[in-house]
């Protein structure tokens, strides 16, 4: 495990902590108040068949902020993420109970159209998954299926510029997206998502398949996009959560007597507090690398 961002209670003075090992200097991002939350989640449970994979999650997601969800494998953080744009609908026998309100509208209401939901709440996946088509067609796909009537060429250029990818690909828009490097593919997938002009972007461990340089580029992009989009990112990488997020949710899994795992939300707070002064021992154990 590479150095965790400080465990010292009082961060971040730009000097070395007194008498301790040197820890990297971290400046946490300032979280804004949660008023006017994009998502309100209350008593959320997710079932796969009879198995309750996630139990009783309560949290609110702030507007135009980056929310990180961290925790050990199998703690249900990706499952929760997939509730936000109803991707869990696609898993047979998956069932969601509890409240997820999106701007006060019940996301799982009877009249709600999951297609409409996904046009507002986009998603980027763990492994880059560009379509086996040209770069241009990858970007244009979302707008096309959504019935976009404007000038596609302009939209593609704007989107790629926005995603800081334009200069790298402007001469090869018609070549296959599969010829790009892994990091470029993932940024293309992010660009493809914002081409639909969503409000929220969900990212499911977007950098886990990438090298550190490509990861840094994605993180830069996330910070830039946070000015306009609400981002929720699931990550295994605690430095990433500490670096980019405003708020952090820590999940872990309880094992019951039958040996089944149930994901729980342990602590949800401003990132600076989670990493400097967590209120739960399990959070502290996890971020200090003692567990997970």
């Amino acid at each position, binding site marked *: 495990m590479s150095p965790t961002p400080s465990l010292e209670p009082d961060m971040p003075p730009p000097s070395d902590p007194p008498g301790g090992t040197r820890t990297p200097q971290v400046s946490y991002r300032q979280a804004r108040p949660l008023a006017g939350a*994009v998502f309100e989640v209350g008593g959320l449970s997710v079932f796969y068949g009879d198995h309750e994979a996630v139990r009783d999650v309560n949290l609110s997601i702030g*507007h135009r902020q980056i929310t990180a969800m961290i925790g050990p494998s199998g703690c249900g953080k990706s499952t929760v993420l997939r509730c936000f744009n109803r991707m869990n609908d696609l898993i047979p026998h998956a069932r969601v109970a509890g409240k997820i309100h*999106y*701007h*006060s*509208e019940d*996301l799982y*209401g009877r*009249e*709600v*159209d999951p*297609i*409409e*939901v996904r*046009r*507002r709440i986009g998603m980027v996946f763990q492994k880059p998954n560009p379509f086996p088509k040209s770069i241009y067609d990858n970007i244009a796909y979302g707008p096309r299926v959504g019935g976009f009537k*404007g000038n596609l060429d*302009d*939209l593609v250029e*704007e*989107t790629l510029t*926005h995603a800081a990818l334009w200069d790298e690909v402007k001469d090869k828009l018609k070549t296959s997206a599969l010829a790009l490097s892994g990091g470029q593919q993932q940024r293309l997938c992010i660009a493809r998502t*914002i081409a639909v*002009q*969503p*409000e929220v972007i969900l990212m499911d461990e977007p950098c886990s398949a990438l090298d550190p340089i490509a990861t840094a580029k994605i993180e830069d992009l996330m910070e830039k996009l946070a000015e*306009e*989009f609400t981002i929720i990112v699931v990550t295994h990488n605690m430095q990433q959560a500490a670096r980019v997020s405003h708020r952090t949710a820590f999940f872990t899994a309880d094992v019951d007597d039958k040996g089944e795992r149930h994901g729980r939300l342990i602590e949800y707070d401003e990132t600076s507090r989670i990493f400097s002064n967590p209120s739960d021992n399990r959070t502290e154990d996890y971020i200090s690398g003692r567990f997970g």
Partner: protein
Amino acid sequence: MSVPQQRPRSASGSPGFLKRSQPRYGEKVIKVLLVAAALVSVLTTVGIVIALVPPTSDFFGEVGLGEFLTGTEWSALFNPPEFGVLPLVGATLLITLIALVVAVPLGLGAAIYLSEYASSRTRTVFKPVLEVLAGIPTVVYGFFALKAITPFLRDNWWFDQPPQIFNALSAGFVMGIMIIPTVASLSEDAMAAVPHALRDGAFALGSSRMQVSTRVVFPAALSGIVAAVVLGISRAIGETMIVAIAAGLRPQLSWNPLEGMQTMTAFIAAAGIGDVPVGSTGYKTIFAVGSLLFVMTLVMNLISIRLVRKYREVYE
């Protein structure tokens, strides 16, 4: 970014903004169409049953079930007619047995070779050979059995009684070659599904490749291999053209493979070719024998499907 278009979608809006923006009737129509296409396969089975059952039950109104199943004389289209199906069943079983004697060892040998021994280059040579063998029309196999294999056997026979012009041996042998691809490719699938960890474990204990193949992979893939053989039996029982051409049309209860004999399928084909008056008892025998054939292959197929599922459940 000053382009207004690029602004993210405005957040809330009026209540119900997540409702369907336009009705998607197309999606529903398409789903109905897809279900209808899937139901064609069910209708096929229903059609087969409809084609078989009424004439068969008519037939058993005229001929006793016991007489049909236990009689040893078959001359359905002659006078006086005899409706004992055992000669047809016996011929079918004898020729199937000959086919299995050829196909099981050769098919399994080919499967083990392709799965455990062959380099990827050898596979690219031999796999198409099996595919071509599987793709040759059975009428061609029948022609080859009658015009090449049988004369060869008759010219080079070492024992006193050479095979007749129409005989079960040539038909069974050629049918065995025909079902090699069926046995080999299904068995190879089953062996390929055996996890590599099992092989590695055995190799690590110092086993030779033969020991790994016969004592680890073969038993682990056994249910799939049995499924392959059972499916091969089903194909052999149902094969028509080879036996109609090379085994002859004389119904007789005999276990001598050097003689000609008529199988169930060959009878159906012969009756179909000949102008049997529609509605006569002779016409209905086509359906009665067809029903028996359908039931026999159905049982084989269900056993095979069951076994394939079993090994898939274990390893996939």
